[in-house]
């Protein structure tokens, strides 16, 4: 059996978790149709039945739901012990999760506990005997073939490496409650308080017809004035790189890429974005890409349909000026 750790938000299983289930199904098909099960931990946004139904449409057989006081707050070790309990009771030969911070963390705990290797950010599998995966290293500019010869084989799937596709034949989606014991030591490092994130406003970004993108080239939080004006002139959404969110220049819900939103606008204007593979994972479905970059050799320029070479702080105001002029 292949066990997928699924993360949820208000919409149910998050997109990258559904991608991981799709990946697991492909792996199952190559391996003679072993079942795909899911494990979810703690309180769910809706009812467990709703989630089980959603996962059934993705071909999931059993949905193991770990509940109990131990899971009232997130903790890497406690979640890992929930996954470990399900793995022990089912004998899963593969355990996988989306390559989100939590997916990485929980599976790293799991592998440290059971003494097997973990492959992070897998994008495809090469062969089953020995089980060989390809994963992203060096920020995606290099790929690594890695052999996972222990059982369970444990890996995370890079965001947007595959598309989330419902199964042709739904699975049973049977709810299997689980209330594993969690050791005291595994409860020490847990979230003790959280300030809720700003409401998820990424919905507009995901469906926008035009997205104005900005990366490190924006220079600072204050460097977004012209970019925001361009966004408004084009009636567009703003999308940013991880550097921009990491540095706190813009909120996370605006991030595009492997660990952000996947967008598919008619036009993506990528300003001061190098076009790293993890960013590309989120914007490659844009119909037309216009890159604005000082570096004519930047990957984003090479991958774009159109490019303007130069400083965005000069070019974007000039575009805004031209737009205002033509609008009259």
């Amino acid at each position, binding site marked *: 059996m292949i066990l997928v750790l699924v993360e949820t938000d208000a919409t149910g299983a998050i997109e990258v978790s559904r991608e991981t289930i799709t990946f697991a199904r492909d792996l199952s098909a190559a391996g003679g149709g072993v079942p795909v099960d899911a494990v979810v931990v703690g309180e769910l946004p809706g009812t467990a039945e709703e989630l089980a139904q959603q996962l059934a449409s993705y071909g999931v057989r059993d949905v193991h739901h770990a509940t109990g006081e131990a899971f009232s707050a997130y903790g890497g070790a406690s979640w890992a012990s929930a996954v470990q309990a399900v793995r022990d009771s089912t004998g899963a030969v593969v355990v996988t999760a989306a390559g989100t911070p939590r997916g990485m963390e929980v599976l790293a705990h799991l592998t440290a506990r059971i003494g097997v*290797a973990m492959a992070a950010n897998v994008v495809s599998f090469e062969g089953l005997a020995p089980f060989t995966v390809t994963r992203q290293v*060096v920020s995606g500019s290099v790929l690594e073939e*890695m052999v996972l010869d222990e059982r369970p084989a444990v890996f995370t799937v890079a965001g947007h490496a595959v598309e989330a596709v419902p199964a042709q034949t739904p699975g049973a989606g049977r709810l299997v409650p689980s209330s594993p014991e969690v050791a005291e030591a595994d409860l*020490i*490092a847990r979230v003790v308080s959280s300030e809720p994130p700003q409401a998820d406003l990424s919905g507009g970004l995901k469906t926008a017809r035009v997205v104005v993108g900005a990366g490190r080239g924006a220079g600072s939080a204050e460097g977004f004035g012209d970019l925001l004006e361009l966004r408004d002139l084009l009636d567009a959404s703003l999308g940013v790189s991880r550097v921009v969110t990491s540095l*706190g220049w813009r909120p996370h819900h605006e991030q595009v890429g492997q660990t952000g939103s996947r967008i598919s606008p008619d036009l993506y204007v990528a300003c001061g974005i190098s076009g790293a593979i993890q960013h590309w994972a989120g914007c490659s479905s844009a119909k037309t890409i*216009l890159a604005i970059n000082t570096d004519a050799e930047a990957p984003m320029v090479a991958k774009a349909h159109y490019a303007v070479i130069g400083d965005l702080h000069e070019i974007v105001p000039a575009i805004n000026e031209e737009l205002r002029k033509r609008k009259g």
Partner: protein
Amino acid sequence: MSLDVLVCVKRVVDSSGEVVLSDDEQAVDGRYAGFTVSNHEECAIELAVQTAAAVGGAASVVTLGDPAAVEQLRSALAVGCTAATHVEADPTVFGPADVAREIAAVVRDHEAAGRPHDLVLLGNDAADSGDFQVGIRLAYELGRPVINGAATIAVEDGAVVAGVSGPDGHETYRVPLPAVVTVLEGGVEPRYPTVPGRMKAKKVEIERRTPVSEPSGPKRRRLKLPPPQPSEVQILGEGPEAAPAVVDLFERLGVVSR
């Protein structure tokens, strides 16, 4: 309270330019590039130095790497670390479990010598191998709790309090020392070395060690480069003079009305 914060860094090829692989396809060839540590580790160094200053303790740095990795230790010493340990070994034959075991041995030996590291900081992920696990494996080796992906940390009342940006928003963890924390860039601005800092760093004697056990190795079969994508980009121009051509394009695509 006297706290000696240990920060773990890895010497990696600066991959911002063109990446070349070694002939045996086991590593990135650094002959034509510079070397660095990841942004996460730079932030970890900064947090180690700030934390040490806040509690009146010290910050130490460790790396497992080839002889040239001394450069990265000196850089950390130049920005405020006061002691450095070099586990001399070829890092490409060490897997994440091996590295964790070696760092744990350093922590134990220092503790036995009367220099406990009640707080160990690492990067969230290494810039080259990107295994996302050495910190967690280290925590299990040492039997300590671990906080992952911290942007900020503070030590108070024998505990480390960390801020993490996660799906629950701004999340706070509070864990008693001794503990392990992995750091994600963004919470602090790494400082630049000063000239006196550099001078001081040169004088520090680096503790040199050899690995305590045979590495079991990474499970790497080989590295490969993604196939180059043929570029079909059409350059609309250079600088602000390209603006009319850009707006013409917007009109052709129908995203602004003519």
